[in-house]
Every structure is written in structure tokens, then in C-alpha cells.
């Protein structure tokens, strides 16, 4: 048994690398056996080797763990395991002394059943919902007429074809940017995220459609991965999710700004119908012409009325003046001495001055007497002051 004793060099306690590794390895070896869940990556099996090696990856954080399992044990499990699959591994922590590497010595591996996936999905869904990632308030509205539609799709000819054909039929003047990527199996989640990033940051793309036809529960799992759900929520432009069939609800559907049951339905969401749009525009134009005419007509009527009033104004003024004049005339009439003369009075003038006192004249002064009708010339014969 190799020792973990320090080497005697000086008074300082110094260990050799091997001794240190051995010591840590022994310490770690005392840890209890555990179950660990992760995604299988870097699976290496060689019939000539005693062990099978694989790396378990935490799909959330990307943390990894090296796993070693005896080849015979592994083969007996008959798992036909592929990279990208989620598994439960039972084992103990182990330190590979020569390299000082920590790993897991596995005793068994189990593929995660649909049940376990569903539970994990439910938990993830609840956690993300609590975080507000699916909130209605986060949903953005889609552009009415997109500058360019980003399409994220797998090598799925049907979904892609349906989407492109429908977009082309509804609104031929569309630009489409297609990003074809891995959508299932190993690395699919990362690939989908990378595709979303590329489309989301494309200069022209202002809406992204994720188009993925139907598939098995496991095939659609990447679209429920936390990475993808977060990438959809964080996409700088609105995202329409058209993943799987009607009955599937991958979590990316909940984070997307709109959900379409089929690629065809997605096309109808992202581009308007050209004919409808033309009709809307024509209606708009008719309303434009009609409203301006109504407005001008109304104004013309107002102008015409004002004109009438303008023309009527002098006549009215004249009439008013005449009426006023008539009144003044009547008044004048009342004041006129002629009316008094009419009652038998006379005006006596001497030197064109109306006489008020007898003493103002002398005997013999010629007088002018005005009557209501005609006048008399006379001479003073007697003065009585």
C-alpha cells in the first residue's frame, strides 16, 4: 500500500504529487454512492478497453463530469445509448490519481423515462413561469409587414416548404432569411440558441419563426430546454413558435410572442395577405378623398353664407339710416314754426329779425308778416311798449 507520508526535505511538510492525489483520492473514496442526472456527451466505447468513458453534462449550466463504467457492466445494460440523451447514473466519486482528475465510477446507467422528463419539464415550467418568462405582458406584437422574416428550421422539408410557400402566396414581396440547424439529438438546444441569436441580430430580420414539424416526445425535448426557452424570451425581435403538432406544447411555445399550430398558420401570423392589404389601402384612399371633400364643401358653404351677408350689408345699412332720418324728420316737423303758423299765429319781422318787443320799432317802420301761407308787407302806425 502506497503511503501518503510527507517527504522529509526540510522542517516544512511537503507532499509529492502522487501522495497528495492519493490522499485526496482516499478521502473522496469515502463519499457515499449517489444518482446523478445529466446529458450524455463524448461517449467512448472500444471493445479493446476495459472501461467505457462518457461525460455527463448539466443541460442548465453546462457543467460536466467524467464518468467511467466497466465495459462489461455497460454492455449488459444494453442501453444502445446515444449522445445527447438524458440519463441517471449511479456511482461514487473517484479520483484518477495519475492525473488528479475527479470523476464518477458508475455502477449503472438508466435512460430517463418519459415520466421523469415530464416531471422535470413541469418543474422547469413552474420555475420559469414564476420568473415571469411566460407573462402575457412580455408578449410583443408582431410587425404588420415585416422587413424580413427569419426562419429557424431543421432539415425538415415539409415544415420549411409549407412556411415558405404560404408566405410567398400571401405576401410575395417578403424577404426570408433561413437558418437551418440541428433541431434534435445531441447539441440541438445549443444549435437552436445559436440560430436564434444569428437571426435575432440579423440587420433586416424583424420577426423570427421557429418551424419544426411533429416528432416524438424526445425529438421535441430541445424546444423545452431551459437554454432554448431563455433564448426565445431574450430574442431581440418577436418570435413565433410553430413547433410540433397542435397537441404538443413545448415550453418555447409559452415563451414565444405568438404560437402557431402549423407552419402555415405561422405564415399567416407573420405576413399580411396582399389582397386584404390592397383593399385596406383603397379604402383608406377613398376615405381620404371623401373626408377632404366634405371638409372643403363645408367650408365653401360657410364662405357662401358670409358672401351673402356681405352683399346684404349696405342695403341694410341704408335702410337703417333712412328709418333714422324719417324719425329725425318727424321730430323736426314737430319743432317747425310753420306748424304753429298753421294754427293762426304769424311771425313779424323787421329788418329780417323776428320782433319780440314793440319798443324795438318806431312808427313808420316797414314790417314783414309771415303767415302760414304767404306774407304781408306792412307799416307801424302805433307803438304801445
Amino acid at each position: 500500500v502506497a503511503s501518503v507520508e510527507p517527504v522529509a526535505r526540510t522542517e516544512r511538510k511537503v507532499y509529492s504529487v502522487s501522495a497528495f492525489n492519493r490522499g485526496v483520492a482516499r478521502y473522496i473514496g469515502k463519499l457515499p454512492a449517489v444518482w446523478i442526472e445529466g446529458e450524455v456527451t463524448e461517449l467512448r466505447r472500444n471493445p479493446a478497453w476495459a472501461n467505457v468513458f462518457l461525460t455527463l453534462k448539466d443541460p442548465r449550466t453546462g457543467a460536466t463530469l467524467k464518468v467511467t463504467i466497466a465495459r462489461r457492466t455497460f454492455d449488459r445494460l444494453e442501453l444502445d445509448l446515444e449522445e445527447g440523451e438524458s440519463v441517471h447514473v449511479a456511482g461514487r466519486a473517484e479520483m484518477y490519481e495519475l492525473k488528479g482528475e475527479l470523476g464518477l465510477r458508475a455502477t449503472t446507467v438508466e435512460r430517463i423515462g418519459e415520466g421523469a422528463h415530464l416531471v422535470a419539464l413541469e418543474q422547469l415550467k413552474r420555475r420559469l413561469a414564476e420568473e415571469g418568462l411566460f407573462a402575457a405582458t412580455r408578449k410583443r406584437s408582431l410587425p404588420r409587414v415585416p422587413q424580413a422574416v427569419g426562419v429557424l428550421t431543421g432539415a425538415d422539408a415539409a415544415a420549411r416548404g409549407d412556411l415558405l410557400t404560404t408566405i410567398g402566396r400571401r405576401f410575395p414581396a417578403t424577404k426570408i432569411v433561413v437558418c437551418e440547424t440541428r433541431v434534435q439529438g445531441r447539441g440541438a438546444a445549443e444549435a437552436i440558441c445559436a440560430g436564434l441569436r444569428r437571426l435575432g441580430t440579423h440587420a433586416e430580420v424583424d420577426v423570427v419563426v421557429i418551424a419544426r414539424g411533429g416528432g416524438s416526445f424526445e425529438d421535441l425535448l430541445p424546444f423545452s430546454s431551459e437554454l432554448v426557452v431563455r433564448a426565445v424570451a431574450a430574442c431581440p425581435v418577436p418570435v413565433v413558435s410553430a413547433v410540433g403538432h397542435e397537441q404538443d406544447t413545448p415550453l418555447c411555445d409559452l415563451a414565444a410572442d405568438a404560437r402557431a399550430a402549423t407552419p402555415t398558420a405561422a405564415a399567416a401570423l407573420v405576413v399580411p395577405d396582399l389582397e386584404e392589404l390592397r383593399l385596406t389601402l383603397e379604402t383608406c384612399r377613398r376615405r381620404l378623398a371623401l373626408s377632404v371633400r366634405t371638409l372643403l364643401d363645408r367650408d365653401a358653404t360657410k364662405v357662401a353664407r358670409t358672401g351673402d351677408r356681405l352683399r346684404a350689408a349696405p342695403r341694410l345699412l341704408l335702410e337703417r339710416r333712412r328709418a333714422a332720418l324719417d324719425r329725425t324728420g318727424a321730430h323736426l316737423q314737430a319743432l317747425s314754426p310753420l306748424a304753429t303758423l298753421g294754427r293762426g299765429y304769424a311771425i313779424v319781422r323787421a329788418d329780417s329779425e323776428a320782433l319780440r318787443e314793440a319798443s324795438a320799432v318806431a312808427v313808420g317802420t316797414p314790417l314783414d308778416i309771415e303767415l302760414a301761407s304767404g306774407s304781408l308787407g306792412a307799416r307801424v302806425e302805433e307803438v304801445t311798449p
Partner: protein
Amino acid sequence: VSERSFEELQRELEDVVARLERGDVPVDDAIALFRRGEELYRACVERLQAAELRIEELAPTDSGKA
């Protein structure tokens, strides 16, 4: 007009119509608004006449192998 999106143009056209329909615009403004509306309408129609589907394929990357 040319560098604005179809959507912006269409929205402005609808605004113009709505203003004219409200009817509280002086005549001079109304005529200017009408001219603007016509211009917007023509710009919108022109956009709709543009070409056919353009498809750009992004080159595959190895980011999927992460």
C-alpha cells in the same frame, strides 16, 4: 418616405385620414394633409408591387456541435 417601413407609412396614412375625418382642420392644412395622404398611399402601393420572394440562406456554422 423611401427609407421608412411600409408599416410606418400605412400608419401615417391612417392618421391623416382620421384627422381629416375629424374635420377640425383649417382648409389650407386640409389640402396639405390630403396631398400628404395621396403621397403616402402611392408609396404604400409601390411597396406592395415590389418583386417576389427573396430567400437568403445563412451558411451553416459548427455552433451546433457545442
